């Protein structure tokens, strides 16, 4: 994927993710609607490609206001990834040279790789994750399972042991997917399925949409590395 196509696709996916997030606040408190209705309009303009640079800047200003309103992210990691993508796109649009633009977009790709690798690294270091206990605890008493029925999964230790190691190994080997385009596409499909599963089991739908928004940066980055080497 070339640089311009990757940027444009990221803008469209970010617009969709922001629109989806924003519309969920339309029936909320008045001071939330005041922030999220303009954000939804700007997200639509971003998808349409209307004065993209200024729309991105306005979205960043609104995002800061939202951070202030909630005194931090509303939905943890997904909001942080949203802000990271938004900041990188802003830098791409306002950077003076192509080299700086590529560095800003490359930073996003690098963070995407780290988001998987570091998650795997902190898990493999923890004996509770290695023996499957951590994932059992997630299902048994954490706040995330979306139904009481899912808590029953904590009574299937072998299943959770296999699931734990599948997640850990996938996250740790993710950087090696950059070795070829084919392996990268396969890895991104698996990663998207992983986020989709998390969305179904733990209600983390925003993670799914925002993580796939960062994928075009990695598809470009992988080709850029090959071009350099």
């Amino acid at each position, binding site marked *: 994927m070339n640089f311009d196509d990757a940027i444009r696709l990221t803008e469209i996916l970010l617009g969709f993710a922001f629109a989806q997030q924003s519309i969920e606040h339309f029936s909320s408190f008045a001071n939330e609607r005041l922030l999220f209705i303009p954000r939804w309009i700007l997200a639509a303009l971003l998808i349409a490609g209307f004065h993209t640079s200024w729309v991105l800047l306005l979205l960043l200003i609104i995002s800061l206001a939202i951070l*202030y309103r909630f005194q931090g992210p509303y939905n943890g990691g997904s909001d942080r990834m949203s802000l990271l993508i938004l900041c990188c796109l802003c830098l791409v649009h306002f950077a003076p040279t192509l080299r700086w633009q590529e560095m800003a977009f490359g930073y996003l790709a690098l963070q995407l790789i780290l988001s998987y690798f*570091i998650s795997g690294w902190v898990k493999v270091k923890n004996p509770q994750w290695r023996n499957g206990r*951590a994932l059992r605890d997630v299902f048994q008493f954490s706040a995330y399972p979306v139904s009481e029925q899912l808590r029953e999964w904590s009574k299937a230790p072998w299943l959770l042991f296999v699931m734990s190691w599948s997640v850990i190994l996938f996250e740790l080997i993710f950087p090696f997917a950059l070795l070829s385009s084919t392996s990268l596409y396969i890895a991104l499909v698996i990663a998207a399925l992983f986020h989709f599963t998390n969305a179904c089991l733990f209600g983390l739908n925003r993670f799914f949409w925002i993580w796939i928004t960062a994928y075009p940066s990695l598809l470009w980055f992988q080709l850029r590395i090959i071009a350099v080497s």
Partner: protein
Amino acid sequence: MIYNPFKLLLPALLPSWNFFDVIAPSPRIEFALLHSENDTSTQWQEFRPRPAQLPLSKMLSRMFWNPRWNETLYVISCAERIMENTSQNNLYSHSENEILNRIMNDIVCNKMLTENHKAQDNPTTHLQFRLLVIQRKGLELIQEVVFQSRITPLSVCTLPMGDDT
């Protein structure tokens, strides 16, 4: 203390990505309806208990429309912020207000006040919540109360959120 938004932006620009590195103690929120600001809570109700089952169709539709669950996750993160700062009153007041407001909306907007609560001779007029924390100690799960909010009057609700379990 109110944090500067630029300070709040920093963790997004330099993320740690240590998702689920340890399974932290998990908060539960319970609330009680009171008859006065000096009343003592005796009957605690769980805030937004999860459904017994969730059909696959509902899980899939939540990919696009999931406001209530996302709000619940936000309320849980507010509870975690309180648990981290219980010794510093000025650090958790924002989170305490956020939780109180959202419980109040559930109570008033979703018409959780029964005729018994509205009884003329002794109506329910105030609200309080508490945080329970569930954590593993060895092979057992321990549950303890770690925080009780201030008692606040039930006010008029302006949020038509609707029920979406």
